[in-house]
Structure formats: structure tokens, C-alpha cells
């Protein structure tokens, strides 16, 4: 039995190994995706359009605003005169940030030694929003240092309002999203294709006529992809820690365990697809349209689920990747432990068991 199994796993590994082009894509894809997403999102922001509201128009406020507008990070789109204009400017998308100075900036600073500057940002792009606030804060900090040198210490407080997306959801969320996508692609698509290929070429018939138990065929087919997924998870995590400098906040062991669970979900999906299709093209199409697209749309990775209409929010619950995405985000980014994600884990496990029961039932032990 063990020997049969070994011979079969070896064959599966050879299939993957011989197909160099696919192998290259499988290993290259996570690296390319993480790097692309990473640099598209973490690149520094230059020449961002901002608005400045300076009702005081005194000497100190003029110095501060000219410092901000002189920075290469900001381009003052307009100097506005009333707070009512801010809303409109954001809604039309003309500005990314508004800097609001208090009405009596110099007076406040000179008499009370403190003043408050407010930043309002468009946080629908959370990464850009935080970056802009950081740049602006450091400019103000510099200015504060400068005026403090000669006189009593002055403090300029900054107050930040993130518009549209106050919790800054979305920052680095692509890493868990890419993990879900890669696992689905490698496990679901590749497994379904590799099983359907055997049906297409007729080798499956010979395997079924052999003493190999069908369950063994399934498990042996899954193993190389399980290994491959592990390599992919490792490369994604390494890249995100060392290149994107996004540390894993929670437990690595928990993260890996949850990833194995989702890998099994994806493998089961692949098996299920292979039982209902007869050609490799159809298997690929179902994997892409039926699995990949819903994952992209409904896992919350590209489009926040909270903003979707209710029917779509309900639909999103049946997408396994959504739960995996929530889990990875919780463990990797928020650093939560198992007690916060047991519910999601339970849902994912339940889905996997259900899919597995369905797939094994459908997997044709006999050809009829």
C-alpha cells in the first residue's frame, strides 16, 4: 500500500516537474504579485493635491503654509476660504487632503503656546492617506522645532480625520488576499486540471482498473500541490516580512495551520470540479470564473464587503476565501489569537468537510 502510494506520488511530482512552464508560473506568480502589489501600494506619494484653509492669514500661518506648499510631496490645488468648500473638493476627487489652520493661529500660539492643525484625508485609499498625514505632520513638527528655538516651547497639535474609511481598512490587506488567490489557483485549478487530464487521456480508466483504491489516487494527487502551496505561502510571507516590511503580528504557527486548512479547502474544490467536468479547458474555466473571480470580488480583498448591497454581502458568505482572508488578516496584521478567529475557522472547516463529502460521493469509483 505504502509502496503503491509512493510510486503514485512520485509520478505526480514528475508530471509537475516535466511541465517547466507551468512550474515557473506557479513559483513565479506569488513573487510577481506580491512585488507588484507591494510597490504599487507602498511607493512614496509625490505631488499629492491638497487644499489649505488658512482663515488667520497671519505671519506664522503664512510661514507654515508656504512650507507645506514648498514640499515636493504636496501640490496646493487651491487655497480655500470656507470650510464648506472642503466637502465639495473631496467629493469631486480634486484633493487628497485638506489642511485646516485655526482662525487665530499666531495669537493662540503666542498666548497659549499651543495651536491645533487639522488634517482631513480621503481614506478610501488608506495607504496614501496615512502617508500624507505622516508627511504633513513631520513638516509641522519641523516648523514647531524651528520657532521653539528662540522662545518658549510652542506646541502645535495635529488632529487627523480619515474620511470615508476611518479604520483605514485596506492597508496591506492585499497580502492575505494574494495568499488566498495563489492557494486557490495552485490547488483548485491545478488539481482539477490534473485529474481531468487523466480522464481525458484515458489513464484514469487504467488506474481505476488497477488495485489502487480511488481514495489513494485522490490523496496522492493532492500531496504535490500541498507541498507546492507550502512553498508559495513561505515565499509570500518572506517577501512581505523582508521586502514589504510587514511583520507577522500574530502566531506564525497559527497562520500556517489556518493556511493548511484553506489549502485543503482549495484542493477539495479542485476535486469537486474535476468530478463534474470532462475536459481540461472546462475545468480551467470553472476554476477561473467560478472560483477565482468570486474570490477576487467577494473576499473583501479588492472591494470592501461593507460597501456592497445586502444581497451581495449575503452571497459573500459562501465564498470560502472570504473566511480565510478574515482569518489571515486577523492573525497576520492585527495579531489576534485563536480565540478571536475560532468562529471563522469553524465555518471554513465546516465548508471543507461539506465539500469533501460531496466530492468523494461524486468521484466515480466506477465509470458509470
Amino acid at each position, binding site marked *: 500500500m505504502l*509502496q*503503491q502510494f*509512493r*510510486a*503514485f506520488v*512520485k*509520478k505526480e511530482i*514528475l*508530471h509537475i516537474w*516535466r*511541465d517547466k512552464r507551468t512550474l515557473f508560473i506557479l513559483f513565479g506568480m506569488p513573487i510577481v504579485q506580491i512585488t507588484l502589489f507591494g510597490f504599487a501600494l507602498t511607493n512614496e506619494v509625490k505631488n499629492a493635491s491638497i487644499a489649505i484653509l488658512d482663515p488667520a492669514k497671519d505671519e506664522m500661518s503664512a510661514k507654515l503654509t508656504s512650507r507645506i506648499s514648498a514640499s515636493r510631496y504636496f501640490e496646493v490645488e487651491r487655497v480655500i476660504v470656507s470650510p464648506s468648500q472642503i466637502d465639495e473638493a473631496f467629493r469631486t476627487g480634486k484633493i487628497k487632503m485638506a489642511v485646516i489652520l485655526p482662525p487665530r493661529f499666531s495669537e493662540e500660539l503666542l498666548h497659549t503656546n499651543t495651536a491645533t492643525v487639522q488634517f482631513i484625508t480621503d481614506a478610501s485609499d488608506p495607504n496614501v492617506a496615512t502617508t500624507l498625514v505622516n508627511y504633513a505632520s513631520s513638516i509641522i513638527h519641523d516648523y514647531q522645532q524651528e520657532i521653539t528655538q528662540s522662545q518658549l516651547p510652542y506646541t502645535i497639535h495635529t488632529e487627523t480625520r480619515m474620511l470615508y474609511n476611518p479604520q483605514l481598512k485596506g492597508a496591506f490587506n492585499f497580502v492575505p488576499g494574494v495568499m488566498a488567490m495563489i492557494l486557490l489557483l495552485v490547488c483548485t485549478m491545478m488539481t482539477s486540471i490534473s485529474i481531468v487530464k487523466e480522464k481525458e*487521456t*484515458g*489513464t484514469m*480508466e*487504467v*488506474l*481505476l*482498473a*488497477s*488495485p*489502487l*483504491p480511488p481514495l489513494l489516487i485522490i490523496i496522492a494527487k493532492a500531496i504535490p500541490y500541498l507541498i507546492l502551496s507550502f512553498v508559495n505561502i513561505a515565499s509570500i510571507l518572506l517577501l512581505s516580512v523582508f521586502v514589504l516590511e510587514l511583520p507577522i503580528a500574530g502566531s506564525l504557527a497559527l497562520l500556517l495551520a489556518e493556511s493548511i486548512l484553506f489549502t485543503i479547502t482549495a484542493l477539495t474544490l479542485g476535486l469537486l470540479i474535476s468530478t463534474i467536468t470532462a475536459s481540461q479547458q472546462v475545468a480551467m474555466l470553472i476554476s477561473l470564473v467560478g472560483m477565482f473571480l468570486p474570490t477576487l470580488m467577494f473576499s473583501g480583498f479588492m472591494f470592501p464587503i461593507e460597501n456592497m448591497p445586502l444581497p451581495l454581502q449575503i452571497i459573500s458568505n459562501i465564498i470560502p476565501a472570504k473566511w480565510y482572508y478574515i482569518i489571515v488578516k486577523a492573525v497576520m496584521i492585527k495579531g489576534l489569537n485563536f480565540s478571536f478567529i475560532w468562529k471563522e475557522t469553524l465555518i471554513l472547516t465546516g465548508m471543507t468537510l461539506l465539500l469533501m463529502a460531496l466530492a468523494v460521493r461524486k468521484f466515480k469509483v*466506477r*465509470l*458509470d
Partner: protein
Amino acid sequence: MYHELNDMIVADKLTKTFGDFTAVDAISFEVKKGEIFGFLGANGAGKSTAMRMLCGLLQPSSGSARVAGHDITRQSEKIKQTIGYMSQKFSLYEDLTVKENMRLYGGIYGMNLTAIKAKTASIASALHLQEELDTLVGSLPLGWKQKLAFSVAMFHSPPLVFLDEPTGGVDPVTRREFWELIYAAAHEGTTVFVTTHYMDEAEYCDRVCIMVDGKIQALDKPGALRQMYNTNSIEGVFLQLARTAKRMAD
């Protein structure tokens, strides 16, 4: 009660229906040990369905059969260990080498490495494939592939081998060579159950069974059949029988 020591296969009113369609209609026959048993019929006559039931790939709708003493409904796992099977489609892995394919099938049938190596060497010399052991099967010519597929089906030296239209699409010279391999196997004591729609191949069999519309219309030695239907070839016999067919070929 059907099982006799001399019979490798005993089928009794074996029937397979798919919905309203009766693919195999209550066929009964025996195949003796060491025999080359030919199963003839037009496309869609039910040959492959009958064979798949005997291999344990399909459950019969009714009737029963024993293969090497094992019941096909309840003991299909035992049957699978006893038989070799070559399917209609070419069934070796084209992206594996000749040697790797043999290793795989040897491994699947539970052979140890020494036995696999010895068998690989003997097949290589029989088929003059010594130089090609490390060649990918996909790059071999079709004739070689078919002979190789047969040798792989015979790799674990099964007492009974099922060949489903093994010579489809192969040139006459290779077909001839292929039958020499079948003879050699039968000479060693292997029982051969072969389906074909090449009538000339029927002459090579010890006994032939002609199926029309899922039923057995004739079963005897080729010579006896020719005599019975008063023609000089099995093709003549077949044409007389096939004229009664109502089923369209698929």
C-alpha cells in the same frame, strides 16, 4: 455454482442498462484458461461495456459473472489485482519516460524494485527498446507505444488480460507484431480477452463471440463459424449477422 476450475470467466445473463438503453443484453459465456477469446462487434454493440463490467469498472444492472473465481459485483477489488487491462485510449503517461511508466505500474501492482527492474529489462529486450528506456513515451512512434502499452498491462504477469480494441489506428505490420505479442503471452499461459472490430484479427483467436445490439449472436471457433454460416471468412459471418442490427453505430 458457475465456477469451474477450467474457466477464467463465467458470465451469466450479464446485463447493463443506461436509462432506457440496454447496452448489454443478458449475455452468457465462458472463457477457458489460456484461451485467446475474441469479442467482435460493430461500434456501439456493447463490447466495451461488457468488458468494463468484467474488469470491475462498471456495476452490472442484472445478471452475474465471475472472473478468476471472484464475483464481479462484490469482489471487484480482488479482480483488479488479478487482471491486466489495456484501454481503448492510449493509456501510458506521455510526459514520463518508458522506464518511469514501468516503475509506476509495477509500483501500483505492488511489485518490489528488483522485480520491476528485471521485468523492465526483459520487456526492453523483447521490444528492442533498450536504447529508449529514458525517452519520453510521448516521443515514441505509435506502433511502439501500443506494444509498450500491452507490455505494461502485462507487467505484473496477470493470469488474465483484457485488451479493449488494442490495435485501433495501428498499421498492418504493427498489428501483426502486436498479435505475436498476444500469442507469446497466451503461450505462457495467460488468458487473453480481446475486443476488436478488425475481422481478420478474429481469425487469430481461439474462439470468437460476435455481439450485435448488445446480444451474443454467435460464439465458436473461427473455423466452425465459417462453416456454420457457409462463408470463407469471419467477415462474411459478421456481415450476415450485422445485417440484423437495428442500433446505429455511435
